[in-house]
């Protein structure tokens, strides 16, 4: 519980980090951790990714930009897409393991395993006007892990 206090928005996570896991009912709108841990590529996109990339993956621009994933030529490389999801880039959070985070910061992080990262990348590469035929496996994602398992 290191440094949980340092942050203006600390607090109920002390409670929520653990106890929500034991809530009996699977909540439809907000997937509890145990359900999220087995969510499909489509569910992950709809519950996590579309918060920034938007429901139809068209992206959005304000003072900065969330890039569109729809008709996205950069997705030609499945490895590029998977590495972005795994390790993050600038304001794109890392969804792979972050061993540098503890306490409150760890609770802020959403951890997807290699199979889920493969699934969501396969999903975006075959939807929203993207028609890439090749797919990724969990093993392909495993090979992309950086030597230190978090962002530089």
């Amino acid at each position, binding site marked *: 519980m290191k440094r949980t206090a340092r942050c203006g928005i*600390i607090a109920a996570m002390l409670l929520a980090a653990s106890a929500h896991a034991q809530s009996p009912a699977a909540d439809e709108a907000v997937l509890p951790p145990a359900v999220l841990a087995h969510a499909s590529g489509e569910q992950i996109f709809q519950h*996590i990714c579309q918060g920034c990339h938007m429901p139809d993956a068209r992206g959005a621009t304000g003072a900065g930009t969330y890039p569109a994933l729809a008709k996205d030529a950069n997705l030609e490389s499945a490895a590029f897409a998977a590495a972005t999801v795994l390790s993050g880039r600038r304001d794109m959070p890392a969804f792979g393991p972050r061993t540098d985070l503890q306490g409150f910061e760890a609770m802020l992080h959403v951890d997807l395993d290699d199979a889920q990262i493969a699934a969501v990348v396969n999903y975006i590469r075959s939807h929203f006007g993207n028609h890439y035929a090749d797919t990724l496996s969990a093993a392909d994602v495993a090979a992309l892990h950086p030597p230190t398992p978090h962002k530089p």
Partner: protein
Amino acid sequence: MSDLSARFSPSRREVLRGIGLVAGGAAMYRAMTALGVTRGSKYTGPVDLSGAPRGASVLVLGAGLAGMTAAYELRNAGYRVQVLEYNARPGGRNWTLRGGDTYTELGGERQHCEFDKGLYLNPGPWRIPYHHENLLHYCRELGVALEPFVQVNYNAYLHSPAAFGGKPQRYRSYKADYQGMVAEQLAKVVGQGALDKEFDKQDREMLLESLREWGYLDGQLRYTRNDGTSDTRGYDKDPGGGLSGKPVWSQPLSAKDVLNSQLWHALPIGDVYEFQTTLFQPVGGMGRIGEAFGRELGDLIRYNAKVTRIVQDEHGVSAHYEDAAHPGVTRQVRADWCLCTIPLSILGQIPMNVGSAMADAISAVSYAASVKIGLQFKRRFWEEDERIYGGITYTDLPIFTIGYPSTDFFSRGKGVLLGAYTWGASAFQFTAMSPAERVREAVRQGSQIHPQYANEFENGIAVAWHRVPFAMGCFGEWSDELRAKHYDNLCQIDGRIALAGEHASYLPAWQEGAITSALDAIGRLHQRAVAGAKS
């Protein structure tokens, strides 16, 4: 300490006060310059900026609290200052949504705030610890009225659908029972000789005595149903006067239920340094601080100016910007120095010729997710039915938080609750919903704690920080490891550019962090400017 008025002779001060009253701070400043009060007069702000080189200029990017603190002090010290701000208003994350406001999030969803007059949501900052001295200093200096913010309310709830059949527990009762449980068990093992090695007889007696007081134990060192425990955890019937006044004691929860409910996770929150009594909030909403700074700086701030490129050379810094409302035409401004307070979430995408150390630091930090939802109800049922006046209920439902207003107690009209304040996986998922879905979900979940929601709810507004066009996230998420590697490089001046803001502080997600980072950075920029002018 930087009270401007202390520096003037009375007659000039009177003239200026008159101008200030009639025309506001910016006009007053122009008048001050005309009267020769600022330039050359000794600067006495919170950082040493004395002896600003004549004509030196600073470009400030972003009119949040970091940018406006910097602009205010630099201007007072005699620098020529310009501020570029993306929004049409000052404050940045210091922001209040009031009835009549509209808010369009990234993706284009527009919400109209339908709250009654006087009711508001602070979508970002909402509380100020008493020891955030720099922020409180500016509140005093700019005339922002403060009132207490209730953090700990013993009569609010701790709740989990998985504990006590989903029945919310009063903080007061659960806390007493938790302490009683710990004290009773510890007293037991002391009695059994488990601590005989650590403590001599006198120490042990002292310990037992303190446990009796701290844990409300009876003569046999047990935590039981009696007047002492009821006077802590609350009565089933409160004591009163006359023949009907006899109290009814309440029954403590069982020790095992106290433990296994895990509600103890939330007990120490109010003991955290930042949450210790007394906390404050501006009367009328946190946004009053940004509004006051904005009034003070007047037309030094150019609004609707979206910075798209930052270029420095050996003589100065240029910022390219376009009209946020009508993109296309790019303009430029230039100054000797630049203080950039644009959040890293956005700055990482803006081309800027700094060295790789600073560039890597900017890229290393992503931003936390957080969502706040304000809900208006027809009446203040939490006060009328449940005697909850301010403070916070903590739950492990995805809404995490129900915050009760710390103001207008006992008023007859409507009221606005903070119906959700959530982070992590829960906040990412709330962000992925439409605003209407977020509000619906907050009402659905909250009614498990307050069944009155069903009849009393009227309207709501939801702010998901990753969808906020000017922030794209809640706050810069540092780890110790990232900090060790990048923090100093982020804060170090690169040529003629310095960065400031919440992200450049050891107080992430606090306004005090933004303000102190700005003061620190302008102090160092000033030294460079003075050194450069002498050479």
